[in-house]
Every structure is written in C-alpha cells, then in structure tokens.
C-alpha cells in the first residue's frame, strides 16, 4: 500500500455544527492546515515537520471526542501558537508572546497553495523598488545572493545588506497591516 497523498485526497468540508468522532478524523482533516500554518511561521521543512508533530502529540490526547469540529480546530490553533512561540523562544531567544492572529485555524484546511489571500504580494507591492527586487529575486525566483547581486548590479555584500533591510521593512509593513 503506497503512502496516502494528502494533496490529492478528497477534502471534505467540515461544515458548522459537525463533530469529529475520533482522532483519526481530526488528524485527516487538519494535518495539512496545521502543517501550513506552522510552515508559514518557520519557513523550512525540518522544523515545520517537528513542530506539526509536536502540535498533534500535545493536542490529540487532550481532546474529548466526539467534539464539535470548530472547537477542535480552535484548540489545535491555540496549540500551534504555543508550540511555535516556544520554538522561537528556545532557539532564537524570542520573547514568549506568540504573534499570531486568533483566527489562525478558522481558515478551511484546503486553502489554495502558495501566497494565500495575496498577503505577501500586497506586502511586496508596498515596498520600495530595490527592496522588492531583492526579495523577489531571492524568495520567489530562488536566486543565490551572488546571482541576485549580479542582476541588480551590486556587490554580494550590498545585496545581503539590502536583503536584511528589505526583510525588516516588510516586517514593519506586516505589523502595520495587522494593527
């Protein structure tokens, strides 16, 4: 039996008022959503896999099933917040507060792939030209620092400084957008 494919498996919407009967359905319905929410906050697969695992290992034994799907999802969302905040605190000395919106799990599990809601595209559009350019070359086109520097006609050192400033500016814009 080959591994199930979470991408092509039919995703059945859990409509309001429905219940999860057991942990298997909780897992099947939410594993992709949990992974994606985690991935967006850590940006790499090894950490995202570890943290998604931590979320389910922590949350599932505490669920009293059957339970309404909405409350299970908000409990998973709260667990994601705790686990991800703890990750940043332990490994990068971040303050313990979790900078996540409350409705993080309110979204459907089968969101379109990639830049959902155009949030990143919106951020990029509001950046000054050079900042936008370096981030697009690095993150969307996947160029190395050297290649990006060559394309922009600057040194690799300059490209790195530009990248750092662009990321900080993007973070400021994201914060302004939320408040």
């Amino acid at each position: 039996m080959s591994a199930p494919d979470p991408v092509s498996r039919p995703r059945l919407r859990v409509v309001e008022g429905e219940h999860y009967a057991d942990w298997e359905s909780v897992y099947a319905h939410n594993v992709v959503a949990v992974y994606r929410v985690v991935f967006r906050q850590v940006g790499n697969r090894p950490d995202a896999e570890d943290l998604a695992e931590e979320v389910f290992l922590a949350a599932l034994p505490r669920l009293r099933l059957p339970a309404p799907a909405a409350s299970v999802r908000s409990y998973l969302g709260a667990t994601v917040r705790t686990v991800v905040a703890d990750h940043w605190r332990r490994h990068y000395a971040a303050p313990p507060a979790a900078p996540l919106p409350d409705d993080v799990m309110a979204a459907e599990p089968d969101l379109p792939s990639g830049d959902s809601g155009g949030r990143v595209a919106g951020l990029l559009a509001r950046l000054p030209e050079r900042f936008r350019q370096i981030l697009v070359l690095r993150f969307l086109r996947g160029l190395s620092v050297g290649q990006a520097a060559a394309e922009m006609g600057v040194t690799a050192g300059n490209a790195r400084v530009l990248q750092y400033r662009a990321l900080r500016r993007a973070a400021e814009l994201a914060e302004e957008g939320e408040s």
Partner: protein
Amino acid sequence: MSPERRVGRFVEDLLRNRRPRRFRATADELAAMRAAAELRASRPGADLPDPFFVDRLGRRLREELTGDAGGRSLTRRRLLLGAGTAAAAAVAGGAAGVAGDRALSAAAGRELVPEGATWQPVLAASAVAVGRAVRFSTGAIEGIVVNEGGRYRAFSATCTHLGCLLSESPDGGRLRCPCHRTAFGLDGSVLEHELVRPPAALPWLHVRVRDGQVEVLTV
C-alpha cells in the same frame, strides 16, 4: 557577525529547506527572520506537507494513542482490529492473524480472527431485536451485532474509510458513519458514500449464541 550576515545565513537555510542554525537573535533580526519565513512559504506548493511525513506521523499517533498498557503485541493487535485503513495496511504488509486474501475484496468484507482469540460474550441475545443492530465494545474491538431474523451476525463498528465509529440509523436498516456520510447495510456492505473510491465492506466476526449471550471470537 553582523545582523546582515546572521539573517543572511538564516535565509540561505530556509531557501535550501534546511533546519537553520540557532542563535540569540535581536528583536530586529527576529522580525526580519519571521518575514523571511512567510516569504519562503509564499512560493506555490512550498508550504504543503510531504505525503510521507503525513503518513509517518499518522502511524506514530496511532501508536501513541492506541498503544497504552500491554506493550507491543497488544498495540499490534489493536492495529489489526482497529481502524479499517490501518487494518488493511497491516494485512497488505503481510501481518499474520487475519485472513489476508480477503482484505482486498471490497464486496465481501474481511473476516477478523485475531491470534489468540477466544469466545467472549458481548451482549444478551434478547437485547438485539430482529432487524436491528446494537453496538458493543470489548476493549480490543468496537463491534456491532445484527439480528437478521433470529440469526446473529457481528461486524467491526469502525468505518473502513478513516475509522470513525458507526451507529445505527434511527429507523434501523443501516449503519451510518458520522464523518463522511457513508452508510453500510446490516450485512456489512456499502450502501452509500461520497468518497472518490468506495470504502471496503465491514470486516465481520465469528458469532455464536450461548446461554442467551451473543459471543464473538476476539482477543
């Protein structure tokens, strides 16, 4: 090392999908790193989980959540007896104790005869009216007993799709899955479903009636 270099190294790791190095970051660095994570995730498909990870974690959770006291052999048995998909996977993998050649037949349902099984009373025969179904639980198996005109039959009560527990419809006559609108007949066959592929028929258990008790062959 400058913030530009430290964050630069972090970005490099993200773009190569490596676990980034850990360090004590300043507030400014943290803000930049979080923005980098979100940008990294915005590439189409980048934030989708690996199917093998999803499968592996599902197995790990099954072990953690069903493998309480009793150690490995009980866990294994529960695996065979538990959710239909898990049982089917274990059978396809060559596990002993279940009639494996029947596992692939969706129409007939499988026979569940676990290793070391004994007859265990599960319900009073009088508790199951003709044409009705009643659930039982032995700790090792969630099952359902059906009275078919005085002849008793027993099936696994977990849906063969994802293992949700079935219950009898209010008017009798069918066993409903609460998860995905699948319904099974009182003979274990699939009556209706909305899945891409029809789920397997319900695995069945050996049944007998002794001293007014319905007994099933199980661990």
